């Protein structure tokens, strides 16, 4: 492990944030973290101090509540991590746009697509959608196709459900 990555892991565990190490060869990132919304800003601050940059912020509509996905990576070492934070009962979550200014647009876009409120965002107006479509929330799932949060979590190859693998090659 790169010394700077070790430092990051230490810094996070000092704040008792649990990192799950992932198999990079399978999933394309190194750590996944589930966090309470209350600790999001503290986490983002830590990412800035550990010299990570913000790759993206995006939403994920699952049952029971929308999850916001943050991905961070580093300019100088191979380290990529994914953070998941569940929105509260009002579909709200704190903003990190004052820590990572790049989150400003990502958060506005997520508000457009999912209707999530980013608390204390300085300018939470539609970014992509037209003003009249402000309540469209195009990426929300409907009751037919929404899945439970656990149903879209990674399972190791051995745990994958059986599929009928016919020798269907061309």
């Amino acid at each position, binding site marked *: 492990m790169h010394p700077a990555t070790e430092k990051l892991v230490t810094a996070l565990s000092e704040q008792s944030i649990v990192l799950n190490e992932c198999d990079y*060869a*399978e*999933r*394309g*990132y190194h750590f996944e973290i589930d966090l309470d919304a209350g600790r999001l800003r503290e986490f983002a601050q830590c990412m*800035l101090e550990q*010299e*990570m*940059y*913000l*790759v*993206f912020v*995006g939403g*994920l*509509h699952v049952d029971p509540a929308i999850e916001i*996905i943050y*991905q961070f*990576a580093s*300019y*100088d*070492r*191979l380290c*990529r991590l*994914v953070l998941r934070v569940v929105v509260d009962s009002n579909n709200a979550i704190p903003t990190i746009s004052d*820590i*990572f*200014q*790049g989150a*400003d*647009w990502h958060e506005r876009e997520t508000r457009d*697509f999912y209707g999530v409120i980013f608390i204390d965002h300085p300018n939470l107006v*539609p*970014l*992509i*959608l*037209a003003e009249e479509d402000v309540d469209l929330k*195009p*990426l929300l799932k409907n009751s037919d196709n929404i*899945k439970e949060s656990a*149903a*879209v*979590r*990674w*399972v190791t*190859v051995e745990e*994958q*459900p059986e*599929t009928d*693998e*016919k*020798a*269907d*090659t*061309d």
Partner: protein
Amino acid sequence: METAQQNLEPATDIPHDNRYYLNMGPQHPSTHGVLRVLLEMDGEYVIDPQPVLGYGHRMQEKMAEHKNWMAFMPNTGRMDYAAALPYNHGYVALFERICGIEVPARAEYIRVITSELNRIVSHHLWIGAMLLDMGAFTPILYTFDDREQVLDILEDVTGSRLTYCYFRVGGVCKDIDDNFVEKTRAFIKRQRERFDVYNKLVTGNIIFIKRTEGVGVISLDMARRYGVTGPVLRGSGIAYDVRKNEPYSVYPKFDFDIPTGQNGDSYDRYLVRLEEIEQSLRIIEQALDQLPDGPFLAKVPKKLKMPTGDSSFAVEAARGELTYYLVSGGGDIPYRLKIRVPSYSNLSVLPELCQGMLLSDLVAAMGSMDLVIPEIDR
């Protein structure tokens, strides 16, 4: 014009007679597509530039959630129209990894060769368009002449000139032949001779230097806070390139450099892209020399099921880091596909970067970012 030298402190509480709003775009030539920048102006100076997005948004991420993941393939070529192949690449590579598909060596070489050719045409387009933005008409005629040579090569093998859909899971859809190799080698030779023309016409041009040097300086701290990547980041001296830092495909087999700038200004971003053309030529040259024989497409089951869970794949597109982040609930339709495009984060620095600039400097700084709006409005 006598009012141009005003107090430039933004957000003064004194009512200002010379403040006005100016709409740059959505049809302005230098916004390269349908982008509008709402400029709060004070005389010739920009007080607050705010990009207004969404004019051509197609909701690609929604489309991805509605069809078999293979059917999304043509969409990947319709985000960054100037360099579509890296978008092909990231998408197929993501599925190859999660489904555990081995790609034949020849296919990986073909992917690298065509992706790098695509990067070169993207930089050709940029050099021409950037200079056009700043009022120089001639360079685009030269770079488009060169660009045509590559587009013809790519058209022969991919079947299209711009919105390529050439890669497949397990390889590419058509093999390259001797004609391709010959024409590509001829292009490499030709392009190396053309650098002299570029340098005489642009690199040493005093007007160009005066318009770009010291304009739009991006610091490391600013880059990190916004997630800036690609040549825009490398212009600021940070050698971050996904091809080196997070190697994929057969890039580790080639000897190439990551050019960086020193001052992080618009001129350095020009130098970085110019040098990247040479580095791409080096990669292509080595790949052609080592090109292995064998199949160009692996045997892949027609019905591929995705494993449950999330996975991520990053590639170096012509404008920076492109990341596909997939969440799957099993089956063959993605549950969620987040597409992180480089121009989106790169453009988001604009309000901070261009505050207090002359309007003409904003055109130079924005031009140096190499924006492709359909990528932002994906």
